[in-house]
């Protein structure tokens, strides 16, 4: 289900019909998305849905089997230097060299990026509370995440790629990282692309959203559009029902007896008409949270078997 997204003309990231297979598993299946400049793009999906695979394609760590990947209008595999010098990356596993000290790590990374801002890096380092003399292997997981984020932010990249930035971190560190990302977004022209399965974060921070399931994009578009097109209805049937009634626009159906909760997507008029046609009345209506939409979307297979 795609909502109209901006044209690919000024897109920072442009993925067209990308597919990828690992042995027998189809990791990505005909993925198409475009990330416009200055946008905060959230990629949402279960573990193993293909988020990390997609991000690796954007960095040139995986070569596109079929389809096309373009970052800043260039192929990241063909021109690694041109693309990677403008991209800041925080990997899910924060693989920093364990033997380096923090100041060595900063000096080392600085040598690669011409736009490195030492003052800003120092400011971030103090803010994150990282001791320059400490070795990376002795840092806690949260500190390693912050160090990784520091390396990705300090040279003010045009595109920030974050793979599960909050995974495995306590709420305090999560908030710190999110604040640092917001500060980056507030600066002009910076694009952020991040994957997460923490939906409240995605809801706070994203402009646009894509939901990926089993390698396929099931939802893509502006966050507001997505939220407005889904609604959660509590309906009351005249007769008691033992079996879930069938609705075309409904994604999930929950309840027993006469009152049922439906989460559906589509035009309001059509949905209400369908409900009335089934002999029920709408008791209440509200916009579901992204969490509920996500769960409904991923549970979709239970409601609509085959076809």
């Amino acid at each position, binding site marked *: 289900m795609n909502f109209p997204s901006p044209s690919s003309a000024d897109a920072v990231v442009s993925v067209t019909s990308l597919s990828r297979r690992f042995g027998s598993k189809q990791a990505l299946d005909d993925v198409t998305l475009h990330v416009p400049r200055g946008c905060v793009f959230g990629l949402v999906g279960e573990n193993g849905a293909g988020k990390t695979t997609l991000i690796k394609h954007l960095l040139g760590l995986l070569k596109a089997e079929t389809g096309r990947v373009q970052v800043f209008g260039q192929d990241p595999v063909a021109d690694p230097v041109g693309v990677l010098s403008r991209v800041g990356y925080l990997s899910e596993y924060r693989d920093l060299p364990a033997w380096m000290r923090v100041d060595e790590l900063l000096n080392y990374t600085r040598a690669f990026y011409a736009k490195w801002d030492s003052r800003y890096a120092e400011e971030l380092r103090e803010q994150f509370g990282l001791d320059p003399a400490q070795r990376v292997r002795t840092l806690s997981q949260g500190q390693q995440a912050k160090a990784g984020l520091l390396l990705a932010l300090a040279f003010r990249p045009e595109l920030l790629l974050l793979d599960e930035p909050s995974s495995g971190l306590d709420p305090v560190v999560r908030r710190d990282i999110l604040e640092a990302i917001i500060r980056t977004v*507030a600066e002009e022209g910076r694009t952020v692309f991040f994957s997460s399965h923490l939906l409240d974060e995605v809801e*706070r921070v*994203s402009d646009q959203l894509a939901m990926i399931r089993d390698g396929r994009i099931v939802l893509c578009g502006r966050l507001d559009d997505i939220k407005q097109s889904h609604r959660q209805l509590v309906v009351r049937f005249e007769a008691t029902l033992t079996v879930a009634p069938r609705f075309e626009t409904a994604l999930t159906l929950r309840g027993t007896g006469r009152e049922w909760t439906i989460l559906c997507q589509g035009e309001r008029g059509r949905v209400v008409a369908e409900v009335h046609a089934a002999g029920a009345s709408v008791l209440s209506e509200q*916009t579901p949270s992204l969490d509920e939409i996500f769960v409904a979307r991923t549970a979709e297979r239970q409601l609509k078997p085959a076809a």
Partner: protein
Amino acid sequence: MQIQIDPSSGAPIYLQIVNQVKYLVASARLAPGEEIPPIRALAEQLVINPNTVARAYLELERAGVVIKRHGTGTFVADSPPSVSKAQRQKILGERADALLTEARQLGVEFEEVVELLHARHEKMNPANA
């Protein structure tokens, strides 16, 4: 300016900000001419996307609740927003419908609802006796 937002509630975040600011202005916690935080600062404070804050401020400006002065910042409007009588009736009419429906569902009598309105009005504007 203390605002709480709940991303998982149904309402869009920008709308929550707009409503809360309107509430603060209406309950005199934000005085006319007072400055509200810049977009960036509020975004960092609430840990939300600055574009959302920008949209909220735009909406508030269009509704005439705040005025953006170039270079200096955004301030609460001195005079209340000018909205046509028909528009006012429409907006409030919708709210009234919702309130009355809820009251009927809960089995509350109309007189009780009027009493409640009086009480809340007094609480909001303690100066007006």
